[in-house]
């Protein structure tokens, strides 16, 4: 395997990424790695440091609320962190999003973005009422800089409260506005592993939505857990096929493209 080194990019201006941290968010390191790897420059910043110094926002073109378990999901997933974000940094976030910036909320990050009102809808307990870690197949159904050039992708979910829900009227509006970005489907991985397409009972199979003209993406699945070839559940099988065909073994998997798209947006 060729080691996945964070490349020192040839890009003139590496976009700067703010990766939120603190209170139980926990996917900061790998999210930072993903951005750095594709040529951005990511900083992990504790929310209290932002509250103390909101001017920090000005430095960044991209903001990411990574996955995790902020406040242990204690008041409902994402709520306590979402409230903190809204109460202390609501205005700064608004200003940040008025600029031509990008934002992503992954898993717990998506829950935080809905709880803070940046994205609409709610993420309820999975229909099984249990935490679930498995791979899913996604169909891209909306427009977003984050998803440019991607039609389908298989990456994993890991959540207890990922069932997207919205009242029918709002849902129709969301659809009309083309903001339903990602839908679960029974694709390559679900067929291979013989699992249902929709893992959590999400309404209209929704896995991710957008806001701010597609610049803000919230999604339950984890692209950073499907960025390396060896993260795939079937990689040892594919490796055998490639070895026998005398072909090289890849290092990347499709999840990395989401991060790459974000960098491309700025260069």
């Amino acid at each position, binding site marked *: *395997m060729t*080691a996945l*080194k964070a490349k020192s990019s040839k890009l003139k201006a590496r976009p700067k990424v703010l990766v939120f*941290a*603190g*209170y*139980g968010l*926990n*996917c900061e*390191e*790998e999210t930072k*790695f*993903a951005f750095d790897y594709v040529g951005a420059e990511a900083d*992990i910043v504790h929310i*209290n440091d932002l509250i*103390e110094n909101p001017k920090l926002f000005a430095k960044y073109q991209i903001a990411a609320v990574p*996955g*995790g*378990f902020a*406040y*242990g999901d*204690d*008041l409902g997933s994402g*709520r*306590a962190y979402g*409230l*903190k974000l809204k*109460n*202390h940094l609501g205005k700064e976030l608004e200003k940040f999003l008025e600029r031509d910036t990008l934002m992503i909320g992954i898993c717990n990050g998506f829950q935080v973005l809905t*709880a803070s009102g940046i994205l609409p809808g*709610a993420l*309820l*307990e*999975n229909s099984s*009422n249990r*935490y*679930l*870690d*498995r791979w899913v197949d996604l169909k891209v159904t909306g427009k977003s800089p984050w998803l440019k050039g991607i039609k389908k992708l298989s990456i994993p979910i*890991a959540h*207890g409260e990922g069932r997207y829900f919205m009242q029918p009227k*709002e849902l129709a509006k969301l659809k009309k506005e083309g903001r339903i970005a990602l839908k679960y489907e029974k694709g390559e991985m679900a067929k*291979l*592993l013989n699992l249902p397409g929709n893992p959590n*009972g999400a309404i209209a199979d929704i896995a991710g939505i957008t806001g701010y003209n597609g610049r803000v993406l919230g999604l339950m699945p*984890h692209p*950073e*857990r499907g*960025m390396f070839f*060896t*993260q795939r*559940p*079937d990689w*040892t*099988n594919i*490796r*055998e*096929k490639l*070895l*026998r065909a005398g072909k090289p073994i890849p290092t990347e998997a499709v999840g990395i493209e989401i991060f790459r798209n974000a960098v491309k947006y700025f260069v």
Partner: protein
Amino acid sequence: MAVRIDVRKVVADSRAQMRLAQWKTLSLSKSPSAAWVVDSYVIDAKLPAGGSDDIASALMNPSVEKAEVNSRWNPDSFAFAIEIGFLPGVTDNVGHTAKETIEDLLKIKFKEGEAVYTTAVYFVAGDIALADAVKIADALFNPLIQRAKIKSKDAYKKDGGFGALAPKVKLPPAEKSLEVNLEVSDDELVAIGKQGIKGRDGKRRGPLALDLVYMKAIRDYFSKQKRNPTDVELEMLAQTWSEHCKHTIFASPLDEVKEGIFKKYIKGATEKIRKEKIRNKKEDICVSVFKDNSGAIAFDKDYLITHKVETHNSPSALDPFGGAITGIVGVNRDALGFGMGARPIANTYGFCLADPNDARTFYRDRERKQSMLSARRIMDGVIEGIRAGGNQSGIPTPHGFLSFDSRYRGKPLVFSGTVGLIPRKVKGRKLYEKKAKPGDYIVMLGGRVGQDGIHGATFSSEAIDAGSPATAVQIGDPITQKKFSDAIVREARDAGLYSSMTDCGAGGLSSSVGEMAKESDGCEVELDEVPLKYPGLQAWQIWISESQERMTLAVPPKKWKEFSKLMEKRAVEASIIGKFTKSGKCVVKYAGKIVVDIKLDFLHDGTPVRPLKSQKPNYQKGEEIPESNDLARDMLELLSHPSIASREFIAQQYDHEVQASSIIKPLQGRGRVDGDAAVIRPVLNSDKGVVIADALYPTYSDVDTYAMAAASIDSAVRAAIAAGGSLDHLALLDNFCWCDSFNPERLFELKKAAQACYETAVAYGTPFISGKDSMFNDFKGYDDNGPINVSIPPTLLGTAIGVMQDASKAISIDLKQSGDLIYILGETNNELGASEYAEMCSERENKKYGGDVPRVSLERNKKMYTAFSKAADKRFIASAISLGRGGFAAALAKTAMAGMLGLRLNLNLIPGDAKNPTEKLFSESQGRILVSVAHSKQKAFETALKGIAMVRLGEVTSDQKITLSLASNKSVSLDLRKALETYRSPFKDF
């Protein structure tokens, strides 16, 4: 008056649906027809005007929820309302978060004593009786930590709901520390040691677990000091000298082993291996072993890998959820508390349980009022505890196991392990070494101190009986820990803000400060400075409480300002509670008085030496194990045996992909079959991988504990090798869980097992780096017929951890392509004794069967494992599965089901002295691996494994069938889909 805010779903509630389904299994007179769940927050604090409405709107998402202040809402039609809340003083994590959120929202600060308490209210509809409601409530709560209130609809309406009760802890003011007179009769000394110090009220405070020999040593020390000890001193000595902390059985002379079995067999193995490696100019992978909270080996030139596996058995028997979450979050602190702080990068779990369908009821008391939880409740609870702790902490759980035996009904074994990653150096400072210096502040970090967990360390050194204190139960708070974990590993450590650190776990401050005081040679503590959860704790309680999520640090005064500012910014409470000295003494003050003044050498080395004697037990010889008369049926039945069956429901609810390090997952192949090892790649820009595996064979202890231990270690090593590890860079951990350990027969078995550990480790060159023992896993209580005594089978969990040079060479268990060749490595002998097959026959025929248990052929295996690793490195191997519980039959079914590909094999070709198909299929002979190889690699593979006992048995087929040819043209076949269905059947509704 406290305010009550109720939050309920206004859309379909899957939580209520889940409960409704669960209640249907309770054998109620009628099934409930509907259920609602309401989350309530009782806010016991002074709020500004309009505050409660602001809180209510913050606590809900209006599109799916409704929150109301003092509303006393109820559904139109319901029979009973059941409220479940915590008992006073039990950790209420949600309440804690609600408090923080309210403070943040309203920009207020709760006063001392103000708090938020949460409850859940279940409304149950249907034509059900009060007795049904009681059963439902019983299934919802655990009386050791929670309270339940049931109200009929009429009563609920009449009373106006459940009110707004704030379960505050109310304690009488703390009393002065007691002097304890030890110049008393031996009987009284025994009573103090066994039942505890008498308080001013005349009641004994709970076990010190100090026997007469120890009590006399303490008396003699204090009579030389010309004074009586204080209660604080006695409680501290009980903690420090507990079996749990001191491992006295492993340290005491046992028969001819004068230095004790730990020094001779465990540490002795490691020392011998390290010397030999150095002599042979091979890499000595050990960096820090047996001296810190975890053991550490080399990862690469920049990093070390640490590992530690703990048990949390006694607390899990009483409160399975609390016990298990405290176990996993606690062992995370063994990573965090290694050196200057290792980042936890993987968790492992292991549960030894009674079959969840085991319907026996055990009681702790003669009156049969205190019943133990059901086998199913314990199983559900411990699984949930590890899930909550691991998932919330953002640590992947890529591996674990389930093992069942009816003897785990009294005390379950709950294993939890944590692998850590730590840089070797930062700015020239070694991070794997630490030393508190005289003058450094003693700093307590994290949670506050309450009455929870008092007498935990001494309690786990005793059997469970009616006197076991309920306060042994704690509930972990992963988020409090996550906050300081991030602050330490990401910031404070690399900034060099402290000079030493350790976990504050068993024994509380008395153990952690007492241990660190060795580094500087003294300490002076002011107990008045320790932040408390509520007032009224007595000095001895503050000193020994095991309240969770705490670390103890040594912070140099000139770093304190920076350190405390950082912690404040990360919302972590840090308090100076004293300073390290070089007085040679441990001094503790409370309310202006000295309550502890003990010389460190007595505290740590004053334990009397107590030689132990062992005696060989008489093993019962059972009947000869019958030959199978229906191989296909027995193979299927084996797959549905709970110790072998699919654990998919656990793998799926444990986050195993966080940190983006997943390489070999807990479920492998298209068939999602459980593996025996996991591989992770913890440093994202490095190719290197870490392989983790474990194994245990408790049933073998009925025949021979040497064989039991050897098989456990060999199987753990082999599983790691089969996944891509190599003997060159592999280390071991030992977890002994024993019973009735002062019984000479158990000691004989212990010595044998320890000898096996030594010989196996030395032969493979795989050093032990850390371990744990839990020596009294006995339950003394009552069943419906009278007194009973249930002891676990002596159990050794062998764990292997190693580093792979290239994680992309890891091997999974699933067959890859039809036409691939199948090889078996190693010999299969007539070793059916205590096998899964023998257990199956025993259950079926209700007889005890005998037979030989497997012997491990060390030299032969070493050659094989070395050759295998070379072939794996060259990528000659398409799949590999280690043969363990269930033998060949289980392994071939798993490799086929995982790949969803068939097998055509000739069973007659299996080498070894196993004669008939039953022995060939079900014998659990050690040192075997089943391998598939591409045709194109056949020659290369066979050359690489030249000289190894190995036979080509057949090939992979594209049909969904396993076909095994037997002698005289007979054959047996197994349909893969049927096999998979059977494999998944035992836990399909879990």
